[in-house]
């Protein structure tokens, strides 16, 4: 089987697995969305009239259920049509609309912070590995310690000190709500300013992993013959470091980047919660708490597809950085 066929098979299987998992798990959860709506209403001092329950059951159509198989087939059919259903917690909004509203925030915040963390970690790792034996070595345990700190704990302390205490940063939200979202400089500046602290949290707690991985690969790469050859060639140190050692050492990190996206998205849920950030993580939490199957499924699916897509992109990019992968395919 060719490389591309195998990759395709892998992604299709992963997609199918995700889609199926996505279908099964919410249906195994106890409870009923109507109860949740009722409970919510009650908490807000609303009426708990028995008639209300019937009204909601009618509204959400949660009466009789079809068989599991029928439901599954209907679900697959809907997916193919891009139909993710209607959100119960934001009824009657479509799941796609709910997701569309929050996805860009997560993509931008998590995407940029992760990329930043990756670049910073890999860059620092390369330097630390290259300059082994200097004070830079102490960066490794320091940053690793940071990645052992719980995300939200760090975030909350940052909020308490930098936002609440010193007032340097806004406490929460994705932008100053007085402004209209758009491409105006005010809005962008505000979004940037609001995103700084969440991004800082993500970067601080994830940079250590990249740094360590890169440093170790760098050390290994430096004992390779081609680095020795490059030095023997009288190339400048920076060139040997970048074009020879780092260029090779970065490959596992690039491959790992895609894999790490799953973890990153997970972390973002917590981060978004701490910063009241309007992203997809808080939506997922909301969906779970409200037994909003459709929204849960939609978000989980979007996250998975996004991670799979990112993996695919990285896989393709990887072929560009490392010519060997493309050709290895024909052999193995």
């Amino acid at each position: 089987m060719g490389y591309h066929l195998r990759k395709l098979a892998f992604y299709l299987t992963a997609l199918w697995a995700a889609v199926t998992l996505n279908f099964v798990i919410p249906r195994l959860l106890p409870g009923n969305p109507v109860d949740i709506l009722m409970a919510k209403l009650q908490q807000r001092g609303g009426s708990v009239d028995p008639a209300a329950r019937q009204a909601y059951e009618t509204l959400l159509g949660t009466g009789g259920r079809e068989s599991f198989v029928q439901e599954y087939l209907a679900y697959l059919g809907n997916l193919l049509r891009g139909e993710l259903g209607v959100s119960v917690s934001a009824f009657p909004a479509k799941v796609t609309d709910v997701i569309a509203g929050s996805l860009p925030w997560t993509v931008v915040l998590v995407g940029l912070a992760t990329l930043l963390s990756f670049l910073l970690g890999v860059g620092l790792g390369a330097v630390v590995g290259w300059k082994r034996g200097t004070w830079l070595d102490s960066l490794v345990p320091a940053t690793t310690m940071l990645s052992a700190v719980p995300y939200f704990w760090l975030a909350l302390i940052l909020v308490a000190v930098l936002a609440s205490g010193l007032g340097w940063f806004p406490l929460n939200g994705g932008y100053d709500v007085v402004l209209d979202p758009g491409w105006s400089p005010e809005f962008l500046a505000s979004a940037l300013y609001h995103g700084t602290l969440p991004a800082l949290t993500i970067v601080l707690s994830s940079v250590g992993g990249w740094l360590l991985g890169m440093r170790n690969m760098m050390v290994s790469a430096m004992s390779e013959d081609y680095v020795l050859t490059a030095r023997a060639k009288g190339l400048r140190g920076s060139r040997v470091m970048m074009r020879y050692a780092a260029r090779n050492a970065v490959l596992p990190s690039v491959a790992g980047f895609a894999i790490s996206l799953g973890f990153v998205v997970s972390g973002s849920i917590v981060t978004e919660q701490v910063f009241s950030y309007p992203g997809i993580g808080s939506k997922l939490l909301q969906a779970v708490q409200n037994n909003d199957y459709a929204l849960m499924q939609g978000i989980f699916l979007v996250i998975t597809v996004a991670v799979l897509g990112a993996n695919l992109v990285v896989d393709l990019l990887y072929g560009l950085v490392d010519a060997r992968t493309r050709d290895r395919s024909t052999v193995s």
Partner: protein
Amino acid sequence: MTRSPKLVTGLALAGVIVLFGLLGPLLTGDPATIRDSGLTPPGGEHLLGTTLTGQDVLAQLAHATRGSLWLGLLVGVLATVLSGVFGIVGAYAGGAVDEVFSLFSNVVLVIPGLPLVIVVAGFVPADQRGTSTIALVLAITGWAAAARVLRAQTLSLRNRDYVAAARVSGEKTWRVIGVEILPNLLPVIASQFVFAVVLAILSEAGLSFLGLGAADSSTLGTMLYYAQNGFALQREAWWWFVPPGLVIAVFGGALSLINFSIDEIVNPALRDRVRRDGDVVASDPAPPEPDAVLTVRNLNVVYRGDTPVHAVKDVSLTLRRGEILGLAGESGCGKTTLAYAVNRLHRPPAEVTSGSVMFGDVDVLALEAEELRRFRWVKLSMVFQGAMNSLNPVTTVRAQLKDVLTTHRPEMSSAQREERCAEVLRLVGVDPARLGAYPHELSGGMRQRVMIAMALLLEPRVMIMDEPTTALDVLVQREILDEIKRLRDELGFAVLFITHDLPLLLELSDRIAVMRDGEVVEHATAEDLYLRPHHPYTRELLASFPSLTGEAGALTR
């Protein structure tokens, strides 16, 4: 084993926390006892103060630490078992099993874990929910990364000859895995286990923070959750909020330190190393002979360490213009160290302790870093043993050839560089069309030709060749040797040719130096050495090569 301060620190910190988790609950009071006093800062009766309901923070911390450690341990064990089954067994079985197992692990890996955990955690019936269930869920979603690592390691171990040997001797599959492969995976497994423990404790804390953790159990995560919901930060009750996070951070940090140490045990190259200021301690040049291009005098190289190794002892060599000087010796005799020291490519802890290296009238050992860089390749180029490894696998031949020209011949135009690269390739008999090729697209012989072409780029007067043909096939070796002789005749550079293959040297070199244990024991013309060897070691070496065409004699049977 050398004592690593990292390991000691890591073990000590982790040990303290484990002890605290084990013994703390016995020494502190009941964490649930509610006191009307409410929130009080540290001091007096309550070393770490009390919570909003007057519960002792220290007692809670001890119980929570125990809970978190227990959870980490559970997840660590479960995830390690799962990753072992899918990683090791899959990789060993190979074929369809491996295909399915690795597909499965990869799928699990790319499906984002926490959202899945959040969804799955809600599914477990309430009365069964607790640390063990959360542990199970975390293990189920968290084993895949380790499985990948173990698979890769197993794949490489599986192809080791000792595994094949065990199979040939008739070992059963499970024994091959359990007795031959598993022990060698232990450091990796340990490192993955440690990683799983840290990840589990962190994930549980995250889940608890979202209110989705093992609510009825006491862990650091739930403690943080209560602190957060009791407005600990808003009340500035740091003694309630900070300690649980700190315990997690310190424990995670300690385990990371342990992991570093494991990595360093597996891969000694990663160990910390103290950088020395210089690679050269002494340089006392003596005037070179008139036609010598490279003169090595009384060179000594020592590997500094707990037990210093004197790798090169008082070696003196002279390479004359246009000659091929053979350096013969077996593994570990110091010949490669010598070759590196000549170009000052040796790295710490190796150090030139005395002697001199003169290139013409340039004292190589006295060159400043920048001078040394300009000296390299221009005057003296090198060809190493494994051409596959000497060429950068991720860039094209063109890039690696041009590199040299851009650095050392900045005045050349791009077209001129291209032309020069093509020219040297033609010189060594490689089609210039291959300039665009990546190293892996070339055969072994072709790669070594490219290396030689690279060495020729700047027309240096000296070329050091360290076992340039050892990894090659007999036929290819012959072609390369012929090529080297031809080029030397045409271009007139001198070659220091290093190999363990004495017959090859005898056929190729003008003069030969035989090295043993860091010393040159004999130094003579090829003919003298072959026909009239003086040193017993030389004689022994010569006798080690049965002649292809000569009589068999008593030597062999």
